C-alpha cells in the first residue's frame, strides 16, 4: 500500500508526508499519522463518527448564538408544546423551555464531562501503570494488585455510592467516574512500559544520568500515549452513558442545567402523553455516544487489525 501511494503521489507536501525515508523524527511521526489518517478516511463509518464529534465541538462552542431561545427561560403559557410548533422546532418542556435550545446548550455540558474525565482517569492510570512497569519488584506487585482489585468492582454501582457520599453535581459525578475507570489505562500503560523499559535508548538515557522520574515522564509516558488515547476514545461512549445515567438518577448536573440525562428524567413524567420531552435528549445522547463508538471502532481497526475487520 505504502509503495503504491509513494509512486502515484505528487511532489510537495504529499510527497513529504508519504516518503519512506523520513529525515527527522517529526517527519516520521507525521508520515505515520498521515498514513493512519488515509486508512481511517477510507472507513465511512469512522468518518461519520468523526463528523458527529466535530459537530458536537462546534455546537458547544456556538450554542449561545444559534439557539433560538434562552435555555433557562420559562414561559408557562407555552408548556409542553409538541415538536413543530411555531418558534419551537423540537417542542417545549414542562416549564415552557425550548427543547432545541436546551439540547444545544447541553452539548457543552457533555463535552465538559467528557473532557474532565479524559483529563483525569487516563492520567491517573498512566501514572500508576508506568510507575509499576518501570519500577518493577514489589512496587509493581502492590500497584497491580490494587489495579486488579479496582478492575473487579462494579463500576456504575461504585460510582453511585461515591456520588451519594460526595453529594450530587457534575464535578462529583466526574470524580466518581474517574475513580472507577482508571484501572484499564493502568494495565495498558504497564504493558507498554514493560516493552519500552529494556530498550537500548532507555539504557542510553539512564547512562547519561537521567533520573527515573525524568525517564518515565519524558520518555516512557509519551510512547504510551497513542494506545491510551485510542482506548479513551473507545471508552468515551461508555463514560457518556454513565454520566447520563447519573444525571438521570438526579446525581449528576442539577436543575436547571440542561444536562441530557437529567432532561430525560424530567420528561419521564410526561412520557405517555408528551413523548418528545424525554425522547429528544435521549436521541442526542445516542448520537454522540454512537459517534464515539464509530470513531473508536475505526481507530481500533487501524491500530489493531486483528480484533476488527
Amino acid at each position, binding site marked *: 500500500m505504502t509503495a503504491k501511494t509513494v509512486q502515484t503521489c505528487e511532489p510537495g507536501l504529499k510527497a513529504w508526508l508519504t516518503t519512506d525515508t523520513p529525515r527527522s523524527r517529526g517527519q516520521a511521526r507525521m508520515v505515520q499519522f498521515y498514513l493512519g489518517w488515509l486508512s481511517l478516511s477510507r472507513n465511512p463509518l469512522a468518518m461519520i463518527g468523526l463528523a458527529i464529534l466535530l459537530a458536537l465541538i462546534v455546537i458547544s462552542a456556538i450554542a449561545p448564538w444559534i439557539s433560538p431561545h434562552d435555555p433557562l427561560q420559562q414561559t408557562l403559557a407555552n408548556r409542553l408544546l409538541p415538536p413543530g410548533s411555531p418558534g419551537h422546532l423540537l417542542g417545549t418542556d414542562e416549564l415552557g423551555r425550548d427543547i432545541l435550545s436546551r439540547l444545544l446548550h447541553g452539548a457543552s455540558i457533555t463535552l465538559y464531562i467528557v473532557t474532565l474525565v479524559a483529563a483525569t482517569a487516563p492520567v491517573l492510570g498512566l501514572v500508576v501503570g508506568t510507575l509499576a512497569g518501570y519500577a518493577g519488584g514489589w512496587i509493581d506487585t502492590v500497584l497491580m494488585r490494587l489495579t486488579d482489585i479496582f478492575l473487579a468492582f462494579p463500576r456504575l454501582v461504585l460510582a453511585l455510592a461515591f456520588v451519594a457520599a*460526595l453529594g450530587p453535581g457534575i464535578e462529583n459525578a466526574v470524580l466518581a467516574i474517574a475513580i472507577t475507570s482508571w484501572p484499564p489505562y493502568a494495565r495498558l500503560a504497564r504493558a507498554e512500559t514493560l516493552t519500552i523499559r529494556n530498550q537500548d535508548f532507555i539504557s542510553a538515557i539512564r547512562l547519561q544520568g537521567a533520573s527515573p522520574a525524568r525517564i518515565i515522564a519524558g520518555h516512557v509516558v509519551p510512547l504510551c500515549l497513542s494506545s491510551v488515547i485510542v482506548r479513551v476514545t473507545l471508552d468515551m461512549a461508555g463514560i457518556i452513558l454513565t454520566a447520563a445515567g447519573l444525571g438521570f438518577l438526579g446525581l449528576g448536573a442539577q436543575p436547571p442545567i440542561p444536562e441530557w440525562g437529567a432532561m430525560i428524567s424530567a420528561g419521564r413524567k410526561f412520557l405517555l402523553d408528551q413523548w418528545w420531552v424525554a425522547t429528544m435528549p435521549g436521541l442526542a445522547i445516542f448520537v454522540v455516544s454512537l459517534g464515539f463508538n464509530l470513531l473508536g471502532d475505526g481507530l481500533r481497526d487501524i491500530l489493531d487489525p486483528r480484533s476488527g*475487520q
Partner: protein
Amino acid sequence: MTSLDTTKAGRGTGSLSPLFFKRVLKLVSTIAATFLGLLFVTFVIGRVMPIDPVLAVVGDKASKEVYEAARVAMGLDQPLYVQFGVYIRDVLSGDLGNSLLTSRPVAEDIARVFPATLELATIATIFGVVFGIPMGVVAAVHRGRWPDQVIRVAGLFGYSMPVFWLGLIGLLVFYGILGWVGGPGRLDIFYEDTVPQVTGAILIDSLLAGDLEIFNNALSHIILPASVLGYYSIAYISRMTRSFMLEQLSQEYVTTARVKGLSETRVIWGHALGNVMVPLITVIALSYAQLLEGSVLTETVFAWPGLGFYITNALLSADMAAVLGGTIVVGSVFVGLNLLSDLLYRLVDPRAR
C-alpha cells in the same frame, strides 16, 4: 520441560495436577484480597460522606450527652482501624446495618429484593446467549459482507443507547401505544402477592403453583425490561463470538475438516463453535455480572422491585447503609462470577490446568 511433562501426565490420567490446586489457591487469595479491597472502599465511602451518622440517628435537637452516648454506642469513638475491623466482622457475619428508609436490617431487605433482579438478569442473559452467539457466528462466517456489517452496526447501536432511555421508549411504544406488553412492575396490581413465594422468581413460583394466568402476566411484564437489558448483552456476546470464531476459522484443523469433506455447517457449528465455547464461558459470566449492575437503571425505569431499584431509592433518601450494603452485594456477586468463570475455564480447557 518438567512443567510440560506434568501437564501431559495430568491430561493423560484425566486427573487434576497439583499445579491446578496451586493456581486455585492463588485465585482464592486474589478473590479474598479483592473482597477486602471492596470492603475498604465502601468503608471509606461511608466515612467521607458529609452526613454525620450520629446526627442521623439522634436528630439535631439531641443534647451533647445523648450525642456522645450514641457516638460511643456506634463505636465511632474508636480508632479507624478498629472501626474497620468491626466493619469486616459485621459484614462477614451478614450484618449490613439497618436501613433508614425501611428501618429493617439491610441484609433482610436485600434478600427480599434480590430474586427479582436475578430473574431479570437471567432472562436477559438467556436472550444474550440465544441471539448473541448465532449472530457472532454468522458475522464471522460472512466477514466483511453485508450480514457482518448489519450485525456490527446493530451491536454499535446497542453499545451507544442509554439503557434507561431505551427502556422509556420501549414502554412508550410497546406499552403506551401498542399495548403488547405489561407496564412497569413485575405483575399487574391485582395479581400482586397472590403467588406463594418459593424461589422468589415469579415465573418459576407461578409455574410451581400451577397458575398459568399469573405466569403469562409475569411474562408480559418481564419481556420488555429483559429485552432492553439483554440488548447490551447481545451486542457484547456477538462481538466476542465473532472475534473468537475468526480466530478458530483460520486454524489448520478447520481446513483439515473441510478437506475431509465435512459439510460447512458441521465445520462451523460443530468444530469451530465447539472450541469457541470455552472462552465464551468467561464472556457470558462477565456479561451476566454486568447485567446485574446494569439493572440499576433498567429497574428504575420499569419500577422493577429488585436490588437496583432498592439502591436508587436508598440513594435518593441518603440511606447510606442500604446503598453500601447493595454495593457490597453487587460487588461480591461480581467477584464471585469472576472466580466461577475462571474455575470453569480451567476445568473445561485442559491446557489451562
